[in-house]
């Protein structure tokens, strides 16, 4: 069963008197791999956070589909006190189970968590302090948590920003695998070549929708100028 369609309908967001998003409207089809591109500060992350229900906005964001499963989300970074004593296993427990993480990993999620970490090449880091991992290693763990339980919608905010080449390849493979299973993917991505290769649809945002459509048709070399102007 495909993941949900997403409809952004006249989404407007203001923060501290500054308009971050201005009347943003577009639709992501069910089960699509959709990329959002745009200049820094153009409102991409704010749009994603509005989708996750974290930003008070005007207009509507609707998920359409017969059934909505879990939402997997991979933030750009996990900014927290790196001295908090938490292993990778603790972080995964914190994110995936209801049983308090300090009481240990839940048996119900154990297999799923191990499979997700293994898929991201991070299983051998399970006993390591999370705060002691490199940026790329942490990003792999963050990606793994989004895979358990299997999401129907996967939201990625530049997940490859701090990740090495092999890690980026794994991310790409896993995104394609999930998308083949029908998971709708919303991916903020600065790598236009990757967008051209992988995405079914793309939206360029700089406070407003600059372009929206199939990458081969809308991602022309003239577009970057329009994105920042």
């Amino acid at each position: 069963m495909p993941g949900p369609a997403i409809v952004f309908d006249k989404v407007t967001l203001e923060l501290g008197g500054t308009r971050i998003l201005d009347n943003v409207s577009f639709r992501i089809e069910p089960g699509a791999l959709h990329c959002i591109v745009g200049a820094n500060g153009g409102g991409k992350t704010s749009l994603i956070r509005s989708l996750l229900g974290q930003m008070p906005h005007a207009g509507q964001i609707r998920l359409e589909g017969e059934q909505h499963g879990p939402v997997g989300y991979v933030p750009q970074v996990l900014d927290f006190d790196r001295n908090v004593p938490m292993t990778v296993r603790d972080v995964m427990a914190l994110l995936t189970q209801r049983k308090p993480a300090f009481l240990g990993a839940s048996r119900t999620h154990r297999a799923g968590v191990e499979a997700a970490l293994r898929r991201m090449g991070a299983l051998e880091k399970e006993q390591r302090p999370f705060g002691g991992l490199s940026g790329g290693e942490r990003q792999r763990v963050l990606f793994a948590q989004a895979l358990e339980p299997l999401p129907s919608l996967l939201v990625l905010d530049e997940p490859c920003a701090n990740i090495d080449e092999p890690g980026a390849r794994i991310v790409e493979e896993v995104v394609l695998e999930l998308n083949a299973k029908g998971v709708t993917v919303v991916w903020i991505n600065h790598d236009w070549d990757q967008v051209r290769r992988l995405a079914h649809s793309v939206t360029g945002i700089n406070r407003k929708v600059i372009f929206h459509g199939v990458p081969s048709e809308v991602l022309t070399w003239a577009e970057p100028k329009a994105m920042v102007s």
Partner: protein
Amino acid sequence: MNAIYEAIRVALQGMAASGSLPQAFTYQFVINALLCTFLIGPLLGALGTMIVVKRMAFFSQAVGNAALTGVAIGILLGESYTSPYVSMFSFCILFGIALKYTQYRTNLSNDSLIGVFLSISLAFGASLLLYVSAKINTHVMESVLFGSILAVDYTDMNILLVVTLISAVVVLPLYNQMLLSSLNPSLAHARGARVRLLEYIFVILVTIVTVACLKIIGAVLVEALLLIPAAAARNLSRTLGGFVAGSMIIATLSCILGVLLPMQLGLPVPTGGAIVLVAALVFVVTTIMRTTMSRFRATGV
């Protein structure tokens, strides 16, 4: 519950009389104090780990100062000046909610806003107490700030027990979401957590725990027991489980030793001070271990 407390008291006093326990256990106030420590230690130890992660170190101190105002209001409304719990709980919960609400409206950082509220609450509470001081014993302010663990009665113990049970019932199912909300609100949202509601619940929880502990150990000691054991446990822990368990054990042991050691050794140290000193000693030892032993240095970054 009073019957259970009585049964424990009779049993312990019997053991003390037969020489199985130290002579200190012949005193009811020592037994009451120790019973309280078995609730306060694990409660503050566990909650302290969340306080440290959420960087709300001085929040309990601000609530303790707000309790001064609560006491003054209670006296003005005719509550008993020795246990004005209704006013203290009511005012302090409103205080905590107002603090969190202001933070969401102004986007000021936790520490700045807590500092502002801490100063206001101390000034306002002390002024109001001075205004009503003609009606009360002026040692009430001292009692709120420093408590008196050796003067607790069964009412105090029952309130502490109820608050401990409420805390366990609320925190255990919400622990992961509460911690995640402070680490990354977006991620918490995506996982279905209602971040703001959880923050308000946490603030109310810390508030009622602080108020329940005020008469027993005082605002200053509540803050110390929320922070020092958690900081000490963090020095040596690699895992979240070790962090929480370590903090609970250190807090409980500090309370027990703080109550018993001055009596056993005949030291002229107040109980509250002794509890903090024991916890502080543990913190110093763990800090030395962390800085000198590679095994513990590896827990940091």
